[in-house]
């Protein structure tokens, strides 16, 4: 079936399909493809069918919880689902069983969602390729020799492959937007602290965000509103593109792009301008400070959380993740504090850049999905470390807390998806979604 949530919700209410049927369809897709894609760490088939039957019973009795009722969703295995292990894709977590649902999962259940399973990730969300996982790497549905991005790689793969209609992920440096771009889905990181992270294993408590991955902006909106606790959200009006005021921060953000990504980005900008959008160039200062500030904060925060297990069970981590965490323990307090001060300065810089605009417009990922196992990637004449490249365009907005969304903007000649990133004003994720919907409509029509 491979429907959007919007399509499924209409057919469900027209009695043309049941929640059980669409759940069974997702479970069949998982059975057919999970061996190839390794997107799920745990499939909750019996529980999902039970939840779907209950959703059907409620609707038949006239109790409508809203657009997520009976919708099969997947949950990143960093987030607690009561009665199941939260593995974080790590042997460090062996024996764990969640005693409660994470707050966000409770809200999705209250909205009637059906939880089909938990998805693979980069161990403890500390990476962007999904290669370092106790379950082995998740793979990209568009080319299984390539990474689905990370750390929410299994979540993006599950949505792109029709194993779930949407997924709940987390984003500390781009971990929702990067896999969304690599797999051709939509991924939203709301404003920092907008959604509760209780019941989520932290990577950096000052930069962790929860958010949805889905096939369309409208579907993303439904999940996002449910995560807010709203069960009957009003569908946002699509703005005409001629009302959009966008700014492209070209220096740094457009300096280092694969040719195919640049081509898709330029084509999207041309289509938006042709539709009447106002698009100007802008500049953020001291972009050279983004990665250093990000690294010192995420390392300091991660070291604080992982210190005890690094001492007690170091060999249960995958070797590369253990080494990065051990390195993180050498960050000095004075440098962590400097990074916090730079963060505050960069936050103001992004606030100023947004004045007079609906959103910043930039690519999400400088390259198409990299091959699994690649340590570096060639961009033009330069070889760049994959990890640095993957984080380059997303990590700033984890530092500053601005809401950011990735939407698909075409594919390369090899059929690999590219992502377009929109960044909005803090605490205005709703507005960002209206803008994203207008951009999505324009690109769909172009």
């Amino acid at each position, binding site marked *: 079936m491979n429907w959007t949530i919007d399509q499924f919700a209409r057919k469900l209410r027209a009695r043309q399909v049941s929640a059980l049927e669409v759940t069974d369809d997702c479970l069949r897709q998982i059975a057919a493809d999970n061996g190839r894609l390794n997107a799920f760490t745990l499939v909750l088939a019996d529980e999902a069918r039970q939840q779907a039957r209950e959703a059907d019973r409620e609707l038949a009795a006239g109790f409508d919880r809203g657009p997520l009722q009976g919708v099969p969703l997947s949950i990143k295995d960093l987030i607690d689902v009561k009665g199941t292990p939260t593995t974080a894709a790590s042997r460090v977590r062996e024996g764990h069983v969640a005693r409660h649902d994470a707050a966000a999962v409770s809200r999705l259940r209250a909205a009637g969602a059906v939880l089909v399973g938990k998805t693979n990730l980069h161990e403890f969300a500390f990476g962007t390729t999904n290669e370092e996982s106790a379950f082995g790497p998740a793979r990209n549905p568009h080319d299984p020799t390539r990474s689905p991005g990370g750390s929410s790689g299994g979540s993006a793969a599950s949505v792109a492959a029709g194993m779930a209609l949407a997924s709940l992920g987390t984003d500390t440096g781009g971990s929702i937007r990067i896999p969304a771009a690599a797999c051709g889905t939509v991924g939203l990181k709301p404003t920092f602290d907008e959604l509760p992270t209780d019941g989520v294993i932290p990577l950096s408590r000052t930069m962790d965000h929860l958010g949805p991955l889905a096939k369309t902006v409208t579907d993303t909106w439904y999940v996002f509103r449910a995560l807010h606790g709203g069960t009957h959200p009003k569908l946002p009006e699509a703005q005409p593109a001629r009302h959009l005021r966008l*700014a492209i921060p070209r220096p740094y953000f457009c300096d280092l792009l694969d040719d195919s990504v640049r081509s898709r980005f330029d084509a999207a900008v041309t289509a938006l301008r042709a539709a009447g959008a106002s698009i*100007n*160039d*802008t*500049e953020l*200062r*001291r972009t*050279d*400070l983004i*990665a*250093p*500030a990000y*690294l*010192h904060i995420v*390392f300091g925060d991660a070291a604080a959380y992982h210190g005890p297990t690094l001492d007690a069970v170091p060999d249960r981590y995958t070797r590369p993740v253990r*080494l*990065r965490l*051990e*390195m993180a323990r*050498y*960050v*000095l307090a004075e*440098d962590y*504090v*400097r*990074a916090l*001060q*730079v963060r505050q*300065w960069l936050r103001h810089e992004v606030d*100023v*850049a947004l004045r*007079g605009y609906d959103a910043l417009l930039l690519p999400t990922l400088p390259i198409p999905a990299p091959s699994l196992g690649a340590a570096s990637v060639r961009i033009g004449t330069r070889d760049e470390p994959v990890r640095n490249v993957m984080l380059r365009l997303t990590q700033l907005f984890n530092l500053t807390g601005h809401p950011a969304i990735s939407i698909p903007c075409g594919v390369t000649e090899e059929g690999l998806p590219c992502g377009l990133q929109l960044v909005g004003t803090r605490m205005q994720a709703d507005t960002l979604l209206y803008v994203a919907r207008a951009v999505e409509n324009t690109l769909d029509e172009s």
Partner: protein
Amino acid sequence: MTVEHWLENAVADAERRGLSELKPLLEGLAQATMILRSATLTESADSSSPKEPGADGSSGRPAR
């Protein structure tokens, strides 16, 4: 502590702990630390006003 001194100590400590593979990672972190320190915003003990990270100290934004 200077970055150079920090790096020397960190590499020695990592080797003592049997983690000599950390050396290239620590060298990368040291580079990031040097960039971070080049933009220090903190008040220093010998001056009264904090510096901003603009390379030339300017506060104006590029024209749009």
